[in-house]
């Protein structure tokens, strides 16, 4: 008896624990779709392949499992690229499957041929062009292993049509374990480095923990909080690290960097020991790198050795899995140094430089985010688009759990949020999934209202609608003399669009209506759109201008 490559592929996905994939059919993936027709594997038909990649990414971020997307060759595969690059920048485990023209036509400029293997080399952790059906079991096992382990990331498998139709004996053996001699991530921190780090921590007078997405990826939230409490060290997180420590924890300073809190940025500038945990000193975090944490010795914990010392010289590098390394440190760390005076200073900044929510009776986005935060009380999942909406959400929502915040950080992909929220709904059934969107970003993948309506995916969309590409407009206001070059968007009736797709919604243009509208969204058993007409020229503050030191913020009392 024989089976086909396509059957082995789907069998391989099921064996990896995949339950839901996001995709779009086309010519060369017909054999795969034929297997899907009566497979237990759930397939969600998106309206554009980019959304398939983002949905798989959102699924991965919400669940901690590998997300899977599927597209046909040529345009289908190319449309995945933005989504793959988004996942790559944020280290999200993804397996992207693409159809390809038959091996005999490769390189011939055949219909719908694109060299997706070559195209995605710079934006994948690894990728495969499968030439023989017999290689499939091994390739699938390797792809999931590479995507999920070490520093996670996307892996692409390109599948020529004759590989999908290729015959295999039906007793194909799927490998139980994968071992690759060129890929052996370091999990345990080196004991001598751990000791050095502990020594610095014991001696520090003004320690600060700077936690990034690595904390979320490795599930190290409990260890992070324990370290902060043991050390008496305040914690600031990156955009990707939100939820790594409770938002209302007394030691949590919120986000740092370009739109970080003033008190977090001051703490970075004044600390004498900076403990970077699963973070990568991105330019949006550091501002002018020479003036970032100028008085601090630096301990840097990361699973990727290439991140250590890449942007900022480090005193104690520790390569290893964040959860594991923090555990090692906690085992050795006797007790914390005396940090009361340091915490007093930090809390002084917190009191004198709080995040501002304008209260003048007008409809401000910060208030909308806070209302949502109060309503959800840290439960559920909040997804954002990219731009002002994202920054207001990051600043004003009180995240209480890891994987409760899903956003495109490194690549900053507008149009990410709506499909990612769909993926989050499949990863966390029964939980509230809210998308905080801007009117610009939402229109980049608004066709996914079709997917949402079709499958009754319970995404709650809150549009912070200001009729501008708000973040770009803000830069134009501040740095280009209010010359609003191509950033104004004509009014869009999002409720009307939603209704045309069969999704209910409500328009809000009065602050008093915000909370009732959010509750209406929450109480739906399906998708819902809240179109909030906010103050049009509201800015995100504080703000560190590009190239400035992070304690040189504008929109902030000095």
């Amino acid at each position, binding site marked *: 008896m024989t089976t086909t490559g396509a059957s082995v592929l789907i069998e391989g996905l099921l064996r990896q624990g995949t339950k839901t994939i996001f995709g779009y059919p086309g010519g060369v993936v017909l054999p795969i779709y034929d297997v899907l027709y009566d497979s237990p594997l759930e397939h969600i038909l998106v309206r554009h392949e980019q959304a398939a990649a983002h949905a798989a990414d959102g699924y991965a971020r919400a669940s901690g499992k590998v997300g899977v997307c599927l597209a046909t060759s040529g345009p289908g595969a190319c449309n995945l690229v933005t989504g793959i690059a988004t996942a790559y920048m944020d280290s999200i485990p993804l397996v992207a499957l693409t159809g390809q023209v038959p091996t005999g036509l490769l390189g011939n400029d055949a219909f719908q041929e694109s060299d997706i293997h070559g195209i995605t080399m710079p934006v994948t952790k690894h990728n495969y062009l499968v030439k023989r059906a017999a290689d499939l079991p091994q390739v699938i096992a390797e792809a999931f292993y590479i995507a999920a382990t070490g520093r996670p990331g996307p892996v692409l498998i390109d599948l020529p049509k004759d590989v999908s139709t290729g015959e295999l004996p039906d007793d194909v053996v799927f490998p139980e374990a994968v071992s690759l001699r*060129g890929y052996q991530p370091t999990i345990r921190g080196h004991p001598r480095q751990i000791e050095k780090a502990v020594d610095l921590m014991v001696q520090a007078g003004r320690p600060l923990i700077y936690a990034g997405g690595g904390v979320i990826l490795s599930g190290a939230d409990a260890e992070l909080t324990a370290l902060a409490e043991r050390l008496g060290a305040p914690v600031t997180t990156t955009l990707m690290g939100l939820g790594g420590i409770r938002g209302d924890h007394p030691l949590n300073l919120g986000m740092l960097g370009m739109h970080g809190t003033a008190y977090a940025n001051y703490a970075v500038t004044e600390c004498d020991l900076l403990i970077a945990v699963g973070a990568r000193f991105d330019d949006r975090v550091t501002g002018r790198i020479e003036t970032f944490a100028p008085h601090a010795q630096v301990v840097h914990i990361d699973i990727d050795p*290439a991140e250590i010392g*890449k942007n900022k010289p480090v005193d104690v590098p520790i390569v290893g899995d964040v959860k594991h390394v923090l555990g090692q440190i906690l085992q050795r760390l006797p007790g914390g140094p005396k940090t009361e005076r340091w915490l007093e200073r930090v809390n002084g900044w917190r009191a004198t430089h709080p995040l501002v929510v304008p209260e003048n009776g007008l409809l401000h986005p910060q208030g909308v985010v806070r209302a949502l935060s109060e309503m959800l009380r840290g439960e559920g999942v909040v997804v954002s688009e990219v731009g002002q909406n994202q920054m207001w959400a990051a600043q004003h929502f009180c995240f209480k759990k890891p994987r409760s915040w899903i956003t495109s950080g490194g690549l900053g992909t507008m149009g990410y949020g709506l499909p990612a929220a769909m993926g989050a709904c499949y990863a966390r059934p029964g939980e509230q999934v809210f998308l905080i969107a801007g009117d610009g970003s939402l229109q980049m993948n608004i066709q996914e209202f079709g997917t949402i309506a079709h499958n009754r995916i319970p995404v709650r969309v809150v549009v912070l609608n200001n009729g501008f590409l708000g973040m770009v407009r803000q830069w134009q206001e501040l740095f280009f003399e209010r010359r609003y070059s191509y950033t104004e968007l004509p009014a869009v009736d999002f409720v009307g669009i939603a209704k045309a797709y069969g999704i209910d919604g409500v328009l809000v243009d009065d602050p008093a209506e915000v909370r009732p509208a959010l509750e209406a969204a929450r109480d739906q058993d399906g998708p819902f759109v809240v179109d909030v007409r906010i103050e049009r020229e509201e800015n995100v503050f504080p703000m560190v201008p590009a190239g400035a030191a992070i304690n040189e913020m504008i929109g902030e009392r000095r």
Partner: protein
Amino acid sequence: MKRHTLSVLVENRAGVLSRVTGLFSRRGFNIESLAVGPSEMEGTSRITLVVCGDDREVEQVIKQLNKLIDVIKVSDLTEFERVERELALIKVAAEPGEPRAGVMQIATIFRAQVIDVGPKTVTLQVAGDPEKIDALEGLLRPSGIKELYRTGRIAVLRGQKTVRSEK
């Protein structure tokens, strides 16, 4: 800025060279010389790279190379005693008579082999460290170099030391 010689042991798979060179162009590193060929271990190849950069840049290059799944091991040979060789094939204008005699004389001094003789040309093969080949090229240039082919540099550690230990 310093010149580094890197020895990279890779899985002999389709696309591996493109992964390595793509990484260099993407991250703005310059390759001065590159040579690829099979190694003593079946299924693997060695890439010898000569790169120029300050210590931090070269450290980044090595770390990024190590991240490639198909890269088994990266060794920086720069600080070690080693032998570096490059091969050149040089076609020189050499009319019979005095011009040819001059070319042959230079070839002898450099222990270059004559691998082809035509009515108006002589083709020399020379192996050595890159400086030697540069010197030979310089001396032959007045005679008229018709074509010059140089392989990338390859390098091996002196003595018992090898670069095959596991990553």
